[in-house]
């Protein structure tokens, strides 16, 4: 039995699982279910709040809880002499509203932003002083968790990585390929987050879907005994498409309105989170391949081509759906 057949059986199961995420909602997987709430200080301790981006569940359904000394009845909020200091939380975060950014614009000093997410549902406003160690730890927790969530919920990124593992197999070739993908997406994520490059989100998401279709075609070529581009130069393909996927990752950070001084750190921790999630996925796939090999469990010959066509079909479904969203506001 060839090793590639063990690999295919393990990957078939994972492909089927990722296919379960094939829902209309998955088309907008990278358009975060988020809201942005701005508080502008009009006199010391008194704020006027408004939703600049309303969450999809509707502003009135957001269960926002400000520090206990603050009296909130939108659009007004009064925090008295103490000012806006203390914990802010939202109790009903979920898949329909996973991130809410709170922007605070004080009378004096720089505007500040706080991200409340399902991974980090409570943030503490620390005042206008320079960030403390606690603030940095909170930032690290928030963005590393956000990065992990983003990759684990991004079935398209995982399907692409799955395709790469499929073609490359294991060993050093896989290490080099995944490293090239990581370097590619880290570079473009940083460039996009700092505003050096900018690509509209919807066409980009369509391109990401196409990249998976490309890998699907490469798998079919490999099964027919042809040597495709990915099989010949896997790291070049991984790096190139990594650049595309990285801009997609940056879309998750865009619109959060982070303070410029916090952006490098937020970006670093977000990227660390993405890598943790990606590494966990790769290790899981490798463990399953090992288990199949140990159990001598192989895919039947009639089913060998199924996973490649599944990957191709899913990605083309995403592509056409996302392409439609480029032209039509859905």
């Amino acid at each position, binding site marked *: 039995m060839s090793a590639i057949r063990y690999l295919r*059986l393990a990957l078939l199961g994972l492909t089927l*699982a990722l296919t379960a*995420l094939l*829902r209309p909602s998955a088309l907008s997987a990278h358009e975060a279910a988020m809201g942005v709430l701005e508080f502008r200080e009009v006199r010391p301790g008194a704020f006027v709040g408004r939703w600049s981006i309303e969450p999809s569940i509707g502003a009135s359904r957001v269960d926002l809880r400000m520090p206990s000394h603050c009296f909130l009845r939108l659009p007004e909020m009064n925090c008295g002499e103490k000012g806006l200091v203390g914990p802010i939380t939202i109790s009903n*975060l979920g898949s329909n509203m996973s991130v809410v950014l709170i922007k605070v614009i004080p009378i004096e000093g720089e505007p500040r932003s706080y991200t409340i997410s399902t991974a980090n549902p409570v943030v503490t406003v620390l005042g206008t002083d320079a960030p403390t160690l606690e603030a940095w730890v909170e930032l690290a927790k928030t963005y590393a968790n956000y990065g992990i969530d983003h990759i684990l919920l991004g079935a398209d990124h995982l399907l692409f990585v799955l395709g790469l593992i499929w073609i490359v197999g294991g060993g050093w070739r896989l290490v080099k390929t995944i490293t090239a993908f990581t370097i590619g997406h880290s570079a473009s994520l940083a460039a996009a987050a700092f505003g050096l490059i900018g690509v509209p989100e919807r066409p980009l998401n369509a391109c990401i879907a196409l990249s998976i279709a490309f890998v699907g075609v490469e798998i079919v070529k490999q099964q027919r005994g042809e040597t495709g581009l990915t099989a010949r130069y896997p790291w070049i393909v991984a790096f190139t498409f990594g650049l595309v996927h990285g801009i997609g990752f940056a879309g998750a950070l865009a619109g959060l309105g982070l303070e410029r001084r916090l952006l490098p750190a937020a970006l670093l921790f977000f990227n660390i989170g993405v890598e943790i999630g990606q590494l966990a996925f790769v290790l899981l796939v490798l463990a399953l391949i090992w*288990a199949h090999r*140990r*159990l001598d469990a192989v895919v039947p010959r009639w089913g060998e081509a199924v996973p490649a066509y599944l990957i191709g079909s899913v990605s083309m479904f995403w592509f056409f759906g996302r392409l439609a969203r480029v032209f039509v506001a859905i």
Partner: protein
Amino acid sequence: MKLKPVRALMAAAILLTGTSAADAHIVAARLGDFYMGASHPLTDLQDVVLWIATGMLAGTLGASKGRWLIPVFPIGLLVGLSLAPVFATVSTQLADATMMLAIGMLLAAAAQVPTLVLCAIAFAVAVIRGAANGAELGPETDRLLFAAGLACVGYGAITLTMALTVLFKRNADSVTSWRAIAVRALGGWIAAIGLMMASLVLAS
């Protein structure tokens, strides 16, 4: 001192009869219903013990018999999940305890179970646990995503447990080898936990 293992077993049995999978709902809020389905069984000790026991039993019987569970177990979970609304009011604790006792005894006896019987046992475990996992779902849960997550974790857990058991028992053909004895001893513990759990359920 002699009572210590008995106390440990009692504690395990009490834990198993009183566990809940509430933690998985936190995962759902964070990552959605697919990951809720994948994490739900991992937060329930009855699932963990029964799945590991089933995987170990299959692994000890060898790769040629065990590999059938790769499709059988996830399919059983899906069947159980689909039956969950029918058995929503029925507690699966006694069935869990019985299966734990049976599998534990088979492991302890190092019984050579035919492939068909092994598949039937694994399917029964999967149906029972699939139904138990599905019983707690609220109407807001996307059942398709939950089912996909549950089937995935079932496939992964059973495949990895079988492979690890096959690896552990390599070159342990003799019944007197320490590896074979270790597996049998663990089987005895699982049977004892199942027996105590059944007693607790019947007494309550």
